[in-house]
C-alpha cells in the first residue's frame, strides 16, 4: 500500500484497463467511466463487488465478461455484506500467511441497490468500519427493470411508477440524501462526484480507496432513463453541478467541504430542460420547477455558491 499514489489528473492514470469494451451498457452510459478510473487508480489490485442492476447484467453475460479484474455479483441487496466477507478473507488469510495480496475491495452498485434494498447491508458495513470503498452510481431510478422510481429519484421526475397525470406530478417526494447517511456512520471518507468534473473525481476516488470505509456518490446521467440525447451525458453531469443541484462535496477528518465552488450559478431549468423525465413540469407544473429552484437556492446558501446568473456558461 506504500506505493499508492494520489491521482489528480487523467494523465497520471496507467494505460492498462480493468474494464473492456464490448459490454452491453447503453450508448452514453456513464457507468464505465468511473469503473475505468477506479480500476486504473488501483492499478488492478482490486476486487469489485456489484449488486444486481444495469452494470451487473450488462457486463457479465456468460460466456463473456467485461471485467479484467476479479469481480463478484451475488444478489441485489447484499453487495456491502459480500464485500465485507471478501475483505475479511483477505485480511485473515494474509495474517495467516496463506496469501500475499490484500487488494482494495470496492462495491460499485446502483442507487436502488444502495439507497433502498441494500441500505441495511451498507449501513452494517459502515458501522463495522470494514475496509471497503462503496461507490454508488446514481442514475436516480431502477433502470435495469425499466425506469421505476427509487429512493434516489428526484422530486418531480417521471418514472414508469411515478407517471404524471391529473393526480400526479411525477415523483412527489425528495431524493434520499445518501451522502449525509454515509457521514452519519462516521465513515473515514465520503464525496460526491460528477462525470463533468473528472479531475475532482480522480482525486476523490484515490482518497476513497485508502481511507476506508468510504462512500462515493456518483451522479450518473442515464440517457435511457432520463430521456436525453446520449451525446449529452457529460454536459448534463456538468449542468447538475453548475445549477447547484449536485454540489461537489468531500467529507474528511470529520468535516464537509465544497471542492468545486460555483462562481456562476445557472437556473435549474438549464439542467431540467434537456431531460424528458422533467418535460411535464415545463408544460403542466411550473410550480414544481420553482420548488426545485428554491431547493437549489437553499443548497447554494448552505455551500456558499454565487447568486443565479441568467445565461448558460
Amino acid at each position, binding site marked *: 500500500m506504500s506505493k499508492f499514489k494520489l491521482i489528480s489528473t487523467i494523465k497520471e492514470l496507467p494505460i492498462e484497463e480493468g474494464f473492456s469494451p464490448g459490454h452491453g451498457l447503453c450508448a452514453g452510459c456513464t457507468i464505465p467511466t468511473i469503473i475505468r478510473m477506479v480500476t486504473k487508480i488501483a492499478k*488492478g*489490485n*482490486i*476486487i469489485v*463487488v456489484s449488486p444486481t442492476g444495469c452494470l*451487473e*447484467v450488462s457486463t*457479465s*453475460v*456468460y*460466456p463473456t*465478461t467485461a*471485467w*479484467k*479484474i*476479479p*469481480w*463478484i*455479483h*451475488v*444478489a441485489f*441487496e*447484499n453487495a*456491502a*455484506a*459480500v*464485500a*465485507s*466477507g*471478501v475483505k*475479511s*478473507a*483477505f*485480511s*485473515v*488469510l494474509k*495474517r*495467516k500467511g*496463506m*496469501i500475499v*495480496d490484500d*487488494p482494495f475491495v470496492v462495491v460499485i452498485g446502483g442507487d436502488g441497490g444502495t439507497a433502498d434494498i441494500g441500505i*441495511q*447491508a451498507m*449501513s*452494517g458495513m459502515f*458501522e*463495522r468500519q470494514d475496509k471497503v470503498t462503496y461507490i454508488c452510481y446514481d442514475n436516480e431510478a431502477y433502470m435495469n427493470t425499466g425506469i421505476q422510481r427509487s429512493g434516489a429519484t428526484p422530486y418531480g421526475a417521471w418514472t414508469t411508477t411515478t407517471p404524471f397525470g391529473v393526480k400526479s406530478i411525477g415523483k412527489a417526494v425528495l431524493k434520499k440524501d445518501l451522502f449525509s447517511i454515509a457521514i452519519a456512520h462516521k465513515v473515514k471518507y465520503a464525496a460526491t462526484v460528477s462525470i463533468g468534473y473528472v479531475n475532482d473525481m480522480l482525486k476523490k476516488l484515490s482518497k476513497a480507496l485508502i481511507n476506508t470505509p468510504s462512500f462515493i456518490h456518483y451522479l450518473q446521467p442515464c440517457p435511457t432513463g432520463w430521456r436525453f440525447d446520449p451525446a449529452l451525458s457529460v454536459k448534463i453531469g456538468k449542468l447538475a453541478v453548475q445549477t447547484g443541484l449536485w454540489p461537489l462535496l468531500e467529507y474528511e477528518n470529520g468535516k464537509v467541504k465544497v471542492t468545486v465552488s460555483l462562481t456562476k450559478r445557472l437556473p435549474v431549468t438549464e439542467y431540467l430542460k434537456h431531460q424528458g423525465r422533467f418535460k411535464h413540469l415545463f408544460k403542466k407544473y411550473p410550480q414544481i420547477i420553482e420548488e426545485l429552484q428554491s431547493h437549489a437556492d437553499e443548497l447554494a446558501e448552505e455551500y456558499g455558491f454565487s447568486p443565479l446568473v441568467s445565461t448558460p456558461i
Partner: protein
Amino acid sequence: MKVIQKNRLALSGNEAVAYAVKQAKVDVTAVYPITPSTAVSEKISEYVAKGELDGELLLVESEHSALSACIGAAAVGARVFTVTCSQGLLLMHEILYIASALRVPVVMAVANRSISAPLNIWCDHSDAMDQRDTNWIMIFVLSVQEVYDRMIQAFRIAEDFRVRLPIMVNYDGFTLSHTYSPVDVLSDEEVSPFLPRREPPFKLDPKNPITLGAVGNPDYYMEAKVQASKALTDSLLVIDEVDKEFEKKFGRSYGIYRKFMMEDAEIAIVGMGSAMGTAKEAVRRLRKEGKKVGALILNIYRPFAYEMLAKELKDLKALGVMERALSPGGVSSPLMSDLLSTLYLNSINIPTMNFIAGLGGRDITIDDFRKMFSELELLEKGKSKRPYLTYVGLRSEEREMVL
C-alpha cells in the same frame, strides 16, 4: 464446557458446534443471533476474544448478510462458517441458492426451529425443509456427539473438489442445541490433518481475475443448474467416504442412514432428528413384546439416497414416515414425498402412512411411537380407519385424523 476426562467434554449441541469450528480453524465467521442457535456465536466470539481462534468475526446486521459475507469470503478461499435457524434461515433463503450455484463451500449449522406465525422458538424441521431445493447438502443428527463429528466432517466434504457445495448440519433446537452430553472430542492434532487446507480450484485473486456470479441466459442456465444438482447427487459418495475415513481414524461413523432392529422387521418407521432416539426406545420395548418392528434413521436428507433406501424398505409389510414438518396442501410431508417416489419407482407397493408430529416443539413420546406402530399394524392388516396423513398429538374435532 466441563472436562470429564481427557478428550471427553460435557458440551451442549451449540458448544459442540462452536468447538468444531474452533478446531477447524475457520477463517471467517459471519453470524446473527437467533434462538436457539445464538450460543454458537457467543462461544465463537469468546474463542476469538481469548485468542483461541485466529479468525475474522463478522457480526453482521442480518442473516441475509451473514450468508452473503460467507460467500464473499469463501470466494477468496477462506474457510467460512455461519449458524442460524427458523426466521433467520428463511431470511437467507434467496442466498442459499446462490451459495450452491457459485459452488462455494460454506458450512452452516442449523439449530432447527419452527417458523412463525405463531411465533414459536421450539423445534421442528420446517426451517430446513424450506431449503430443500437450494442444492445444499443437508445432514440431520441424532445426538450432540453426532453434531460435533458431522461438523468436522462437513468442512472436509464441502471443500472436496468433487463436491464444492455448501453444507447444512441440522441439529434439533433445544433438544440438542441446549442439552449437555458427554462428547468425545478429537485433539487439535487429529483435526488438522483431517481438514487439510487446499488451494481452491478458483478464487477472487487480482493475479488471476475471474468473473463470479455471471448472468446465465437460456443458452447456459440449464447446464449450470444441472451441473450443480448433479454434484449434489454425486456427493453421496464423498459423504460416505469421509464418514468411513472418520471411522477408521477416530472410531465413529454414522452412515447415510442407520438401521435399528431392521433385520427381520416387518413394520418400520423412517424419520430424522433427535425424535428418532425416542423411536429407538419404542422399538426396543415393542421387540420385547415380540413385535417385528424397526426404525430407520435418515442422516443425509440431501442428496437423497433413494436407491439404497429402496433396498432397505422393499421387504417391509408396512412403512410409516414420521416428520416434523408440513407441506400444506400437498400430498404428504417432504420426506414422505421423497420416499413415495422411491417406492413407486422401484415398484415397491407397501402400505404407508405419513405421521406429522412434534410441530413447534410438541413432545413426541415413546407412547406416540407405540401408537404409530399399532396403527401401522392395523394398516398392514387392512384395518386402519385413519387417513393416510395422520397427526400425532394434535387436538382436533376430526378425531380420525389424530393419533
